[in-house]
């Protein structure tokens, strides 16, 4: 083995170009794969911070008939499921989104947290790193108020104070005892820094059967499959509906593994990208294989002599594999360096909503992956050339007048297969990149229904208790808007319940049209209810299609009016003017009195909650709703971020204790919303470009090699009368034949990739013929160019010279 190693080093030192080219190709492939794997490992492969995660499920409901994918569960329904279900060993509940809590003190701060049922931590199987978590006895009316904080909050806000457990905190004006600190890995739900039992915070929720507020977390009983649990809760839900609301549309139970919910769409995207980068590595291996095959062709004599001297085939394969391993090892080392340097760049591309991104690092697991990849690469790139080269025959190579073209034929076949594989892989990546590029373009050029440029947005929160009265809140919003409007550089400002692109969860509101029965109304889709100050539409530059927007005269004393989106208008009153029409809608706050409201305005359809879909937007005036507003939007003449200090000062001049969070520009929020699509597009496009270059280089290398080996044949053909054009055609035809075969195979792969990544696409079908054709055209052009250069060289061969040389 030592002598094999020594000989391999010497052999490679004598051919530095082969070594550098091959190792560089592998370094690129291994480096990119390792970097992507480090993200996949941190995000997807590390165990979740729960016990027996595979038994954890999430539960909510949907109403397919009403196109409503997400319906929250009421506390009584949660209680009924807990009592009747045998599929779960435990069931906990929490709201679908975090709540904002104000931690009092000299400088009050707003933190995200979740109110949860007392068994939340037990269901998840999560233990506190310090102190303890709370239990069910602390989730009842009158229980002492307790709170568990995250490791992050403990470090950030309390400086890692050792005596944190037992300390009293002012949370939303209520004294609560910190009873535990969770371990660093426990970050669930995302961005929650604080957990407190539910019932002491909102005791009234326990009896409200008509208020859906929760998603449930279930731990399946040992041995119970998710399908069985789904069937059981389906039956319980259906029986409950039959008793309580027989006319209601069918609620569909959505029971999904907690892990799916945790990872969200990032899982599919990351697997697709890891698959893509491994395809790039496969291409690199194919290129190195082709190089080693070419080298083997020039070593036939040496190998035959070794056979004559007694070398067995395994021994020859071992020696050739040692050479390939050295190349792979150099590639692996360089690749690890590339991954280390490139990881930060990669992380900058990954959208922030991907969980656990901060844990991505080149650590021992990732290094082990890189090492494994290097070993696989050495085998992948080296084995085929080694097997082919070692199958040489002494009589064929050394004997006078060899009669068989065995080794040469085998190598030619292997080269054709490699070229075809490279073309196939490159086509798959090009087509994938094409689909994602079109997706990104479609999203980027989407008409949002509002103008995000030059808009500043911020969230406002004040301590509970201070603005409990509706009139106080209305006064606050009015004053804030007036102060901000008075700032130089501000064109308009408004307050709104939730700003555009805040997230998927909001007020999903029911409505009834004139003449609709209650049963029919139950099947209506839900509205995206927003409450706004009058200048909201002007501030967001949301085009008014019909009628008017709100004025200060639309107050509590007059019949309620609403502004709706044109898509809602079309759906409710197709072909009619919506102005003056009525809808019955529950008021946004308890007791949710159903109220008839008159449409006074129709505005453009907006991508309000997410880019991909336009919801049925329904706007109420803040003067006719008691619900609090959470965000301010400010249209500025210039850079909105430059106005942050002035806006902050204006808000503080109204109330020094108001807390501003989420201060950013609307344009950057659009950018963030595009992040997932941009990330997938950029990365896959990068891989596709590398793949195209590698494939072109690989094809060039193979064709150039074949031409160099056929100089004599070309010389003879030309001596027999072949013209330069004939030779050019001959080389191009033979070079392009495996490419075209590869294109056919790659087409199948591209269709499969399209199907796999269909969840990542927008506005383009997974099997888009234009994209596929464009990818095939680009690859064909690159392959033609790669063949044309050696073909031209072949066409210029001087027959006399070629035959003399031979």
């Amino acid at each position: 083995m030592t002598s094999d190693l020594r000989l391999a080093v010497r052999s490679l030192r004598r051919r530095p170009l082969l070594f550098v080219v091959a190792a560089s190709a592998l370094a690129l492939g291994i480096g990119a794969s390792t970097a992507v794997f480090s993200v996949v490992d941190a995000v997807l492969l590390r165990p979740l911070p729960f016990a027996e995660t595979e038994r954890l499920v999430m539960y909510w409901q949907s109403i397919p008939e009403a196109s409503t994918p997400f319906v929250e569960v009421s506390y009584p329904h949660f209680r009924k499921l807990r009592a009747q279900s045998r599929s779960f060993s435990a069931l906990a509940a929490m709201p679908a989104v975090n709540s904002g809590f104000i931690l009092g003190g000299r400088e009050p701060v707003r933190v995200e947290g979740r109110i949860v049922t007392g068994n939340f931590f037990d269901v998840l199987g999560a233990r506190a790193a310090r102190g303890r978590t709370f239990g069910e006895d602390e989730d009842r009316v009158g229980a002492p108020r307790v709170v568990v904080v995250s490791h992050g909050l403990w470090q950030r806000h309390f400086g890692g104070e050792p005596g944190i457990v037992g300390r009293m905190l002012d949370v939303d004006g209520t004294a609560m005892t910190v009873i535990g600190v969770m371990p660093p890995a426990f970050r669930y739900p995302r961005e929650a820094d604080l957990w407190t039992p539910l019932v002491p915070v909102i005791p009234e929720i326990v009896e409200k059967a008509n208020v859906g507020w929760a998603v449930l977390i279930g731990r399946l009983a040992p041995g119970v499959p998710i399908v069985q649990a789904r069937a059981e809760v389906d039956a319980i839900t259906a029986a409950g509906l039959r008793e309580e609301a027989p006319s209601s549309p069918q609620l569909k139970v959505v029971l999904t593994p907690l892990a799916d919910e945790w990872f969200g769409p990032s899982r599919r995207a990351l697997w697709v990208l890891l698959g893509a980068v491994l395809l790039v590595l496969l291409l690199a291996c194919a290129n190195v294989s082709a190089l080693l095959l070419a080298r083997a062709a020039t070593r036939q004599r040496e190998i035959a002599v070794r056979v004559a001297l007694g070398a067995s085939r395994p021994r020859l394969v071992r020696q050739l594999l040692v050479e390939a391993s050295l190349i792979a090892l150099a590639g692996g080392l360089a690749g690890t360096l590339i991954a280390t340097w490139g990881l930060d760049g990669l992380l900058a591309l990954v959208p922030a909503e991907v969980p656990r991104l901060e844990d991505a690092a080149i650590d021992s697991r990732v290094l082990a992956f890189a090492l494994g990849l290097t070993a696989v690469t050495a085998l992948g790139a080296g084995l085929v050339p080694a097997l082919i080269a070692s199958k040489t025959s002494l009589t064929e190579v050394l004997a006078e007048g060899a009669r068989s073209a065995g080794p040469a034929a085998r190598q030619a076949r292997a080269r054709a297969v490699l070229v075809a594989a490279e073309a196939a892989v490159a086509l798959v990546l090009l087509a994938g990149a094409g689909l994602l590029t079109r997706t990104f373009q479609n999203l980027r050029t989407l008409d949002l229904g509002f103008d995000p440029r030059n808009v500043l947005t911020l969230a406002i929160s004040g301590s509970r208790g201070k603005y409990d009265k509706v009139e106080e809140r209305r006064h606050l919003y009015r004053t804030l808007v007036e102060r901000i409007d008075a700032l130089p550089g501000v064109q308009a400002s408004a307050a709104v319940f939730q700003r555009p692109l805040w997230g998927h969860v909001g007020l999903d509101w029911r409505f009834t049209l004139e003449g609709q029965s209650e049963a029919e109304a139950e099947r209506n889709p839900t509205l995206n209810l927003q409450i706004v100050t009058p200048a909201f539409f002007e501030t967001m530059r949301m085009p008014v299609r019909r009628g008017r927007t709100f004025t200060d005269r639309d107050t509590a004393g007059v019949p309620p009016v609403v502004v709706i989106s044109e898509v809602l208008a079309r759906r409710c009153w197709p072909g009619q003017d919506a102005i003056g029409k009525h809808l019955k809608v529950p008021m946004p706050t308890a007791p949710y009195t159903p109220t008839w409201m008159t449409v006074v305005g129709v505005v453009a359809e907006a991508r309000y909650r997410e880019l991909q879909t336009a919801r049925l937007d329904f706007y109420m005036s803040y003067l006719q709703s008691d619900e609090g507003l959470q965000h301010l939007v400010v249209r500025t003449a210039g850079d909105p971020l430059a106005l942050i200090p002035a806006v902050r000062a204006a808000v503080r001049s109204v109330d020094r204790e108001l807390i501003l969070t989420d201060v950013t520009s609307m344009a950057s929020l659009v950018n963030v919303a595009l992040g997932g699509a941009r990330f997938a597009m950029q990365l896959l496009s990068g891989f596709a470009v590398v793949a195209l270059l590698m494939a072109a280089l690989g094809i060039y290398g193979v064709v150039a090699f074949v031409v160099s080996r056929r100089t004599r044949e070309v010389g003879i053909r030309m001596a027999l009368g072949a013209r330069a054009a004939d030779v050019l055609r001959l080389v191009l035809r033979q070079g392009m034949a495996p490419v075209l075969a590869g294109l056919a195979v790659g087409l199948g792969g591209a269709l499969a990739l399209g199907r796999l990544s269909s969840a990542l696409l927008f506005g383009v079908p997974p099997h888009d013929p234009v994209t596929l054709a464009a990818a095939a055209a680009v690859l064909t052009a690159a392959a033609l160019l790669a063949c044309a250069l050696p073909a031209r060289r072949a066409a210029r061969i001087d027959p006399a010279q070629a035959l003399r040389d031979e």
Partner: protein
Amino acid sequence: MSEPLVRLRNVDRAYDQGGGKVFVLRRITLDIAQGEFVSIMGPSGAGKSTLLHVLGMHDGAFTGEYEFLGYKMHALGRKERQELQKKHIGFVFQSYHLLDDLTVYENLEVPLSYRDVKRSERQAIVGDVLDRFHIVGKKDLYPSQLSGGQQQLVGVARAVVASPKVILADEPTGNLHTDQGREIMELFRRLNEAGTTIVQVTHSDVNAGYGNRIIKLRDGWVVE
């Protein structure tokens, strides 16, 4: 009389060509005793090299019977043949076929490493052979730094390094000028006198004169 080293009976060797068969060796029947120095002669295409490769066990696609030291080669598998070849046969080529990337020392070491001889033993054997062939001073040179005669000297040294019973030489002086050729043939004579059986393919009557028997081939047949 003792058992011959090599015993061929009705050996044929044919290649497939254009749907038919082209015979290169026809019904070869011959014996070679241990310690003989045999020269195979004949015009180009007579089948000399093919016969040498059949004798050298590189080519197993023959029909007929071939016994070597009593082993029935026609009945053995490739691996067993290769083992016998490793143990008993050394090869010398017309074009020397030294391994370009290896020094003289390493070229001599290669056959021993393929026979799993321990490193310390290899050093001793190679040192001894370098000494016997008077090429100690050349041990660190690469083939490209040697003359043709020197390269063939190393080729012969490499053939004997694993102490084979037989050396098969395919026109060993074909690429050498007369003086160098003579030296190589003298070397073969000495090896033969020391007990090694030699079978050479040659066109040269002079070289054939070093041996004690000539086998003449024509169109695959033994004619004399």
